[in-house]
């Protein structure tokens, strides 16, 4: 008998006193964990395939289910821990690269949690957002300072393309393919209602969603899937994806089994073929090449749309951003290494890139030192988890934030990190029709709107406390931040003082 090196990661704990054998768990689990055993007349579990997505727990009408970590442990070893050993067994089995989904679960420092905000006391008044205007409207794009006045005192100024956001939050790129059509529709509808933008990712734009174009950012990535004139014209802005926080230096791979009719049509590739995005853009091997692509896209769209260049936060991010700012881009999106992904090699996800907080601080400082901060807006993503993270990001220097994991969570995702399997029980990261239909765009878009609306209320409360009634006065306002438990080097990079100073 072959030896099984793999243990189930989770235990399914079922309270048989409560269980009414309705079999909803069985029907809901695409991983086929639950089964009704007629002989025993009870529900049984195959824990081996459980991913802890919590779908069965959430739908069990009698709360009879719990999923908890398998208590079986290998012998304790601080160096060769359970996960490392399991991964070695997996690779010894398969000979392959380990794949993971969503952001790294490893315990790297989260600088947001080591930064505290200021509030007004005595010398200036806090402002109550319920009584006074509290403004969060944000413009993204180049901010040309030039202005002249004619002899009649009329002002003449150049207007460059921009995005106008009612809230300083946008939905980050997730392709149709990595997520379902219903998930895309939910994001598009929510962005429209919120007065912000969602991002197509590199999978093209489904024909049904052109109507949301004025709230859509159309991404152009290294695979150029779904890119044609009509696509570029459809959106409010174009994003060139140079990198992704979860997998800097790596392309993408949507397996052929996910390329159904609709995805095939949207991506403009044959059905059933693998969609492979190369690691580099094969027309961009240097910064001057990027400049050409920026200008090509601008030319193709009549110079009417801002161009975003999205880069992963890597060691030399400040110098790279400076180059991008001089390449004609209107907006730089920086994606931190804790950002999510539909699938990435585990080693890349867990070991490559730097935290977004440090990347943002050094990019913002660098662009100001070079006097070119005005030429671009900065959007940051890569694990923005709450309104407090948004406020801290803006105070460090961001113009707006991209959220994706938080958006997925609001639609039902439970971060089981199994997107790559294509069997998302929540109907989000899957193309299986029976699963996709579980996500109702009516409900999911409402939940997205609720989330961002709630965050915006919180942003206003925090701004008001600081005596700031307009988000632009918070941008780059690092005096409003203090570090706790950070060393002098970290404080220097973040450009903030320690609490008590």
């Amino acid at each position: 008998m072959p030896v099984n090196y793999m243990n189930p990661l989770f235990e399914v704990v079922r309270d048989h006193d409560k269980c009414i054998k309705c079999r909803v768990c069985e029907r809901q689990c695409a991983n086929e964990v639950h089964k009704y055993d007629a002989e025993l007349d009870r529900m049984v579990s195959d824990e081996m395939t459980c991913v802890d997505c919590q779908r069965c727990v959430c739908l069990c009408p009698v709360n009879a289910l719990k999923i908890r970590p398998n208590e079986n442990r290998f012998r304790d070893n601080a160096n060769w821990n359970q996960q490392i050993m399991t991964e070695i067994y997996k690779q010894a089995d398969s000979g392959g690269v380990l794949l993971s989904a969503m952001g790294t679960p490893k315990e790297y420092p989260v600088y947001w949690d080591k930064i505290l905000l200021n509030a007004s006391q005595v010398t200036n008044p806090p402002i109550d957002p319920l009584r006074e205007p509290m403004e969060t409207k944000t413009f993204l794009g180049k901010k040309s300072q030039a202005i002249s006045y004619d002899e009649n005192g009329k002002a003449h100024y150049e207007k460059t393309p921009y995005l106008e956001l009612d809230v300083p939050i946008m939905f980050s790129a997730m392709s149709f393919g990595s997520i379902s059509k219903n998930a895309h529709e939910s994001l598009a509808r929510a962005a429209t209602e919120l007065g912000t933008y969602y991002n197509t990712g590199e999978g093209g734009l489904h024909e049904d969603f052109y109507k949301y174009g004025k709230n859509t950012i159309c991404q152009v990535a290294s695979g150029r899937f779904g890119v044609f004139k009509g696509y570029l014209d459809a959106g409010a802005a174009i994003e060139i994806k140079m990198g992704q926080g979860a997998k800097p230096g790596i392309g993408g791979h949507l397996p052929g089994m996910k390329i159904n009719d609709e995805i095939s049509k949207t991506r403009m590739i044959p059905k059933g073929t693998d969609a492979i995005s190369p690691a580099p853009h094969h027309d961009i091997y240097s910064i001057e090449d990027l400049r050409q692509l920026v200008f090509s896209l601008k030319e193709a769209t009549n110079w009417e749309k801002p161009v975003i260049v999205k880069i992963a936060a890597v060691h030399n991010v400040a110098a790279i951003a400076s180059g991008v700012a001089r390449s004609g881009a209107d907006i730089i999106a920086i994606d931190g290494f804790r950002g999510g992904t539909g699938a990435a090699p585990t080693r890349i996800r867990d070991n490559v890139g730097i935290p977004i907080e440090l990347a943002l601080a050094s990019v913002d400082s660098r662009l100001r030192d070079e006097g070119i901060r005005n030429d671009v807006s900065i959007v940051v993503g890569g694990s923005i988890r709450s309104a407090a993270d948004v406020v801290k990001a803006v105070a460090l220097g961001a113009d707006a934030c991209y959220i994706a994991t938080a958006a997925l969570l609001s639609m039902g995702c439970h971060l089981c990190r199994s997107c790559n399997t294509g069997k998302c029980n929540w109907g989000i990261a899957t193309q299986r029709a029976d699963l996709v239909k579980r996500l109702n765009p009516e409900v999911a878009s409402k939940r997205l709107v609720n989330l961002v609306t709630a965050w915006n209320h919180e942003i206003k409360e925090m701004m008001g406390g600081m005596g700031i009634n307009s988000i632009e006065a918070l941008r780059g306002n690092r005096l409003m931040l203090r570090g706790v438990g950070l060393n002098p080097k970290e404080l220097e990079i973040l450009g903030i003082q320690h609490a008590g100073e």
Partner: protein
Amino acid sequence: MLQREGETRIPAGCAISGFINRSGKRTNGSVIVNSIACMHERSNGLGGGYAGYGIYPEYKDQYALHVFYDSGEARVKAEAFLDRHFDVVNLSRIPVRKNPNITDEPLIWRYFVNPLPTKLQDSQLDERTYVAKCVIKINDKIDGAYVFSSGKNMGVFKAVGYPEDVGDFYRLEEYDGWAWTVHGRYPTNTPGWWGGAHPFSLLDYTIVHNGEISSYDANRRFIEMFGYKCNLLTDTEVITYIIDYLHRRLDMPLEDVAKVIASPFWSELESGKFSPEDTEKYRHFRNVYSSLLITGPFSIILGFNNGLMALNDRLKLRSMVAAEKGDTVYISSEECSIRTMCPDVDKIWSPRGGEPIIVTLDKGAERGNK
């Protein structure tokens, strides 16, 4: 050890007052001293200062530099710098009167200068930019030297102390100007440095300010991209640089400067209150000059070569009163101080937040020559 301005940020409450005569008639400095004396309670003796316009008619074409020196060496260094960059027409110590409440004074010198034509030409700058750069350079690079006034036919006088004592110390009754502003300071720290008193000035721009702006670091980090160095870490300094940038360098009229730094709320812009053309312009301002928006409480009086502008933050979180009598306009933190200067004003009102009062000399009014 307590840190002085430039080493730490010190918030301050204050009193301000000022007046301007449109036809250019000059008024004695003692009037403005009295106006601030009656608001004694709004200061705490840690700073006071004045700006007078039209006070140097005999040198009206030269830049008047007022400089504090901590030591003789600083003066030697600064004067060497001045000699390299300017033709010094006249120099002297600024005459002062001993006052028991004003102590620890630095060396206080005054120079009337013209930029050296060859240096100016080499710099490829216009004259005012050249002078501004030289002033910023002295303040930034020469330790112990601080230029606190650098305009033509105007001057700033400031010190640590109550403003009425500062006026007495500088013998302001010996100067006549067509406009005066004054500041009494209530800092929440004890800096004890004369350079930190207000008004803050660059060229002929002077600012007296009451408030504590919450946008400070956003404004500072933005304006420093354009060659300014915020060495004092005070609101007044950054506001002066913002106005210099918008008004002098971008050549924006003061009405529009006010719409940038105290921009209309979005709700106002969407209400149809402004003409479509203005609405479009103000939307543009909120987009491209967004980092120059000032939030938090402020009331300021800006002095410039041709007039005064008073402005409140857009929520009017600080008191400010204006009044008119004939061709003179008065502005102050409190009505009592206006009544001190002019008991029977024709009109007195409280300007709305974000709506500037701009008063300029009448055409033909000869600055300071009446």
